[in-house]
């Protein structure tokens, strides 16, 4: 035990000595949480739309003012032909074109029926969808307000309540997601690289011939990174609560316990990678090229997992971030306890044990 502590101390010095890396390790996650917490939202606002108004009557102007005053749109007006609309889209910028036909007001007043054409740039499906949706709801709103004296009979009035996130802020979904992503990648990279580096530079041999158990060498190497990551978790949580206004509705100790478990899982994954690879370069390419995009996609914070084809849903189960994302979201935002999260916790625990066992096994083989 004394030996182990001495080793851990040595590794700590190693890590702390390298000021630059340390700065990167702490600065990075914090900057990322802040930037993404504020910048990412699933809404669309300030989208530039182009209005082609052939009517130029009271109704079209009134509706335009209504569209313009919503925070979703910025209106540009022009009289364009079909061809010109195409080339406007091709230049970029414009997300949708709204066309008012001539006689808009007249049709509305005399025939009680008028048309509006909405063309979206669906090369960006997300934005096209949202823009079309916002536009039609504004138009519907306008339509219902045209004649206040007319009250529809038999009205069903839906009262909608947004649970957990009444202002529909992006941060509620993205911060736990970025947390699950950043912690995973940082932890995996740190261990994967530091162990393989000893192999590459040849110092591993020295450690292995020492009377110290090789397994403990690995644990001692991983330990400082666990502490570092927990400091990161603390910083991220403080920022989320005090800067990004996210709640922590559930128990803070539970959140830390789960974070510790998740970090250990990631460190185990890093150890596994470092044992299986021969050079830092490969270890890094695997942990970055191979894992960045898949963890982003399969954590569930960018794309709903239940929409994916079944084989991919199955694959998503082996991504530790997926489970941690559910855990963080549930504890912070929903305020749930361990009784609701035992399944996710057990899965992470199982992954950790599995990774460590497999790593230790192949590690021993290498020694013989």
């Amino acid at each position: 035990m004394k030996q182990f502590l001495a080793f851990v101390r040595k590794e700590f010095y190693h890590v702390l000595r390298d000021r630059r890396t340390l700065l990167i390790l702490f600065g990075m996650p914090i900057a990322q949480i802040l930037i993404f917490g504020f910048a990412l939202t699933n809404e669309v606002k300030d989208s530039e739309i182009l209005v082609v108004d052939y009517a130029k009557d009271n109704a079209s102007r009134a509706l335009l003012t209504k569209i313009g005053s919503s925070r979703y749109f910025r209106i540009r007006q022009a009289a364009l032909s079909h061809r010109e609309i195409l080339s406007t889209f091709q230049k970029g910028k414009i997300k949708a074109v709204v066309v008012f036909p001539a006689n808009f007001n007249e049709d509305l007043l005399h025939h009680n029926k008028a048309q509006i054409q909405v063309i979206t740039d669906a090369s960006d499906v997300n934005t096209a969808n949202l823009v079309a949706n916002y536009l039609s709801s504004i138009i519907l709103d306008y339509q219902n307000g045209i004649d206040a004296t007319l009250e529809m009979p038999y009205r069903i009035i839906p009262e909608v309540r947004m649970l957990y996130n009444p202002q529909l802020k992006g941060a509620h979904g993205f911060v736990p997601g970025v947390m699950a992503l950043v912690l995973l990648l940082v932890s995996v990279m740190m261990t994967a690289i530091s162990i393989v580096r000893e192999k590459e530079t040849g110092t591993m041999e020295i450690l292995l011939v020492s009377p110290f158990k090789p397994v403990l060498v690995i644990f001692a190497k991983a330990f400082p990174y666990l502490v570092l990551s927990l400091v990161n978790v603390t910083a991220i949580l403080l920022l989320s609560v005090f800067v990004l206004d996210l709640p922590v509705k559930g128990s803070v100790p539970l959140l830390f316990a789960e974070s510790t478990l998740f970090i250990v899982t990631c460190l185990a994954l890093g150890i596994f990678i470092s044992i299986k690879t021969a050079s830092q370069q490969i270890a890094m390419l695997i942990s970055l090229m191979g894992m960045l995009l898949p963890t982003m996609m399969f954590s569930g914070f960018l794309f709903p997992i239940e929409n994916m084809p079944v084989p991919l849903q199955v694959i998503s189960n082996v991504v530790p971030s997926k489970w941690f994302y559910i855990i963080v979201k549930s504890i912070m935002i929903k305020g749930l306890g361990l009784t609701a999260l035992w399944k996710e916790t057990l899965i992470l625990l199982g992954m950790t044990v599995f990774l460590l066992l497999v790593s230790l096994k192949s590690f021993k083989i290498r020694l013989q």
Partner: protein
Amino acid sequence: MRTLRFLLRKEFRQIFRDKAIVAMIFFMPMVQLVLMPLAADYEVRNIDLSVVDHDKSPYSQKLISKIVASGYFRLTGYNASFKEAFGLIESDKADLILEIPHDFERNLIREDHEKLFVAVNAINGTKASLGGSYLGSIIGDFNADIRMQLVTPPRFSKFPVIDVVASNWFNPVLNYKVFIVPGILAILVTMVGGFLSALNIVREKEIGTIEQINVTPIKKHIFILGKLIPFWVLANIVFTIGLLVARFVYGIVPVGSLLTLYAFISVYLLAVLGFGLLVSTFCDTQQQAMFIMFFFMMLFILLGGLFTSIDSMPDWAKLITYANPVRYMIEVMRMVILKGSSFVDVLPHVGIVSLMAAILNGWAILNYKKTN
């Protein structure tokens, strides 16, 4: 020129000697390009709905079957109380609760209006707002059906109706793959180029071979060029394979000209590689270089406009995106591949990216010191 040729031969040999790396460069991006777009589907369907029907009248039954028949919603719970349904929301088994009050049918007919309660799990904003609005429009339709039954048509026509004729250009059926594949390809090519170049110089520093180069009379810009060209070639190959995958797996054929696309990508890669090399000249260890690249890569990807719209970001974040090469790449991919934009249309993008390439590579040359 002769020196450059020798340098290039050395670099290529070095890359191709390591079979594992070569496999990684070509194989991993392609597997991801085939798989990832299948995972990136934001189309909101399969919304899990839990219904609390206190009324159990013919009307409430009809409303529920209309909602289920719409295809957007999956009825995952039919609960006796709101509390019970809320439990389903907590465990993510439901996204939406529809609560139909007692005497819904009776009140609607007698009092001329009646409320319905909808509760939405709003942690995921898109799903919440789209799910809510789908449900709203189905309820609206149902409402209109009932009116048709109860009210004589002449009275009904008093209400002005605005008919929205919607069309989606460039991707009429709103196919998600068509939208996401070019974006993912852009990201993958950036990663291959960025990571490889960032690791390169610093690796020579770490294993000490850079000393040997430093003592030779090679000019700094020749050295940087020697590092740049091999990765530029590799990344172009990866990009080309990616286009083929897009075409034969996903059926995406560029509408615009390939020449325009390659004109852009060749400048773009110079910028990305320049960035990687610059990072490489700044760092002492591969570890540092990787962490820095990881940081920027995440910024580039998440602020690139593929997953969330740039328009809706706060102003300071929009400013950051102007310095984000991936943003231009994703825009150009969409413009040329899906919309058929011409070279003139993407010229501003080419201009900005060339400027980036010049600055980043110039800086890398200046920052690379032959003496320690």
